[in-house]
């Protein structure tokens, strides 16, 4: 019965997203066909959305547990800066050694995992509400990133890194997109083919019921926030490749955007509900929306936070009415 309910609810979200995407694509087809429907335009989208898409996957996992991870952008920048500084240091004496890039990527991922585990500890062991824990750790990671760089950008990173991560497979397929697909497939595998998924939904539905049925809630939370940290770090590494530099201020709008994606994709902020497919669709819809908006130079870019915030609030109010309709 309960299972039925959230499938139906998920479907409402997916239908709504598909309708939005179709409407927007039709709108773009009418007004900016030549500029929007080109291979290059879609290729660019495939390079851009993995940045926040990867972060959103982590936020989704945390929100299914009834928590949230607002530190993703801080983790991403922290990881990107660490990797960037490491690459520069390795390349300081001439050429970048062969192990340089894998080492930098591993270091970034390790930073992400450590930062995520730290969040998980704060949430599970010290029992700080996830909102405050991750807002606080965002300040902390961002602070560390500023201290590491003295507030400046890390630039002049060896081009080999960018060539690899921001490259194209067969000259067409962006590597960033491949990274995203692999991570999304892995998350999908965890959620649907392992016991991790059901446990996560159970914890999100009722923390107490999960505890009484013998789940190790603390370990599950730490694992989830660690995963979120790793996803965020990968997002940061993609950003490092895309901009070929790293800075503590990069991606500041992504925090809200990730929350927006996850809520838009049908994950309930109170936990226990939501599907990967909805979130993936929401990521794509948001990317075509923002790419489309970019084709209208007359729209001031300052309107974008207004649009994102407005859409987020509207979706939440719509959700309220759909849920109310179902309850009646």
């Amino acid at each position, binding site marked *: 019965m309960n299972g039925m309910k959230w499938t139906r609810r998920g479907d409402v979200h997916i239908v709504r997203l598909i309708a939005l995407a179709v409407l927007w694509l039709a709108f773009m087809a009418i007004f900016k066909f030549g500029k929007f429907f080109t291979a290059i335009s879609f290729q660019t989208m495939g390079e851009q959305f993995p940045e926040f898409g990867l972060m959103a996957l982590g936020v989704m996992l945390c929100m299914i547990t009834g928590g949230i991870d607002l530190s993703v952008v801080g983790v991403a920048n922290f990881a990107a800066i660490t990797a960037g500084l490491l690459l520069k240091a390795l390349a300081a004496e001439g050429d970048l050694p062969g192990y340089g890039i894998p080492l930098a990527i591993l270091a970034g991922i390790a930073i992400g995992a450590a930062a995520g585990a730290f969040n998980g500890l704060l949430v599970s062991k010290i029992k700080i509400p996830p909102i405050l824990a991750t807002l606080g750790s965002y300040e902390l990671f961002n*602070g560390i990133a500023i201290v590491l760089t003295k507030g400046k950008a890390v630039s002049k990173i060896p081009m080999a890194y960018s060539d690899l991560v921001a490259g194209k497979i067969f000259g067409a397929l962006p590597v960033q997109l491949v990274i995203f697909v692999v991570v999304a497939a892995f998350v999908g595998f965890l959620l649907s083919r392992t016991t991790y998924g059901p446990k996560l939904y159970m914890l999100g539905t009722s923390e107490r019921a999960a505890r009484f049925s013998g789940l190790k809630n603390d370990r599950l939370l730490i694992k989830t926030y660690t995963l979120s940290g790793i996803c965020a770090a990968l997002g940061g590494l993609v950003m490092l490749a895309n901009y070929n530099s790293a800075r503590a201020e990069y991606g500041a709008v992504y925090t809200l955007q990730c929350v927006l994606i996850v809520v838009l994709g049908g994950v309930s902020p109170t936990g226990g509900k939501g599907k990967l497919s909805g979130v993936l669709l929401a990521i794509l819809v948001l990317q075509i929306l923002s790419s489309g908006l970019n084709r209208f130079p007359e729209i001031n870019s300052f309107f974008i936070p207004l649009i994102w915030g407005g859409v987020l609030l509207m979706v939440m109010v719509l959700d309220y009415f759909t849920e109310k309709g179902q309850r009646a």
Partner: protein
Amino acid sequence: MVKKLSRRNETYITLVALALCAVIQIRSGQFFTPNNLVDLASALIVPGLFAIGAFMVIISGGIDVSFPALASLSVYATTKFLLNINYQGGILVPILIALALGAILGAVNGFLISWFSLPALIVTLGTASVFKGVMQGALNSTQLAVIPPGMDAFGKSALFVAQNAESGLTSRMPVAALFLIATLLLAYLVLRYTMYGRGLYAIGGNEISAYRAGFSVKWIKFLLYVAVGMIASLAGLVRVCMMGQCHPTNMLGMEMMIIAGVVLGGTAITGGAGSLTGCMLGTILIVIVQNSMILLGIPTFWQGFAVGLLIIIGTGVSAMQVSRAGAHRAAKGAPQVSRTAKGVPQ
């Protein structure tokens, strides 16, 4: 028992603040000088006002991260409008306009949070973004180097002036300090002696119980966000007057520092417990940390790190007290109250 805990927390925070003052005094010899103390007090006005608003929201079990954006928008709109009509009068009209705008913007938050029972964090993240978008997109905000003369005069007027005997530096105590004192007094009276104030604590303790006890949860929450919008607008206006110019975006991002101060002062992050005294003490601690890094010779880029650390320690201590109090209550056999009341039954 909650009272005892919070009292302990306040003594503890006072001790930390005093220890910090002593360290700064020893390292720089400049802390306990009249002008530094007056500088600190005047730096406290704006965060103090914000903190009162954030405190009331946290007491009710909610959270508001939109107040800096709300204040920026309403103050920018007020200043811009007054400049456009070439307003020459006193401070009263700007205050009234800012309060009215703050009430309207706060009502947006309150409406979404109380009528649709949506999570306060996500709503305020959304409205913060909308307020920012309206200010920068629709109003096309730019830095206003000149503000109406009435506001400027108010910002520069002083209650008294303190002078450092050694260096000869002087510092003014702005008249705006009276606003902080008045708001503090009002909030104290409301929280302590009115049914409304008790209702805020009751909702924060347990929303469902408060509802069954006969509190009109929706109205209490709605009016709370309206009031917080007004307080935030007032704080923003005071800040613009004191700076003598309107920089639309430089208040954004203050929310975490303010929330950190409130929580450091022993306010339960889950709502229902906390005192205004603690809230002000926590804010003072944060202001001292921020303002004294220069005196200690620490580069300012450490500030984010220090604030983040303070937030985590502050919320951590508070969270551990809440769970210890919960465990204590459970051990005594009293019914355990769910900390995650998700909404009032329809």
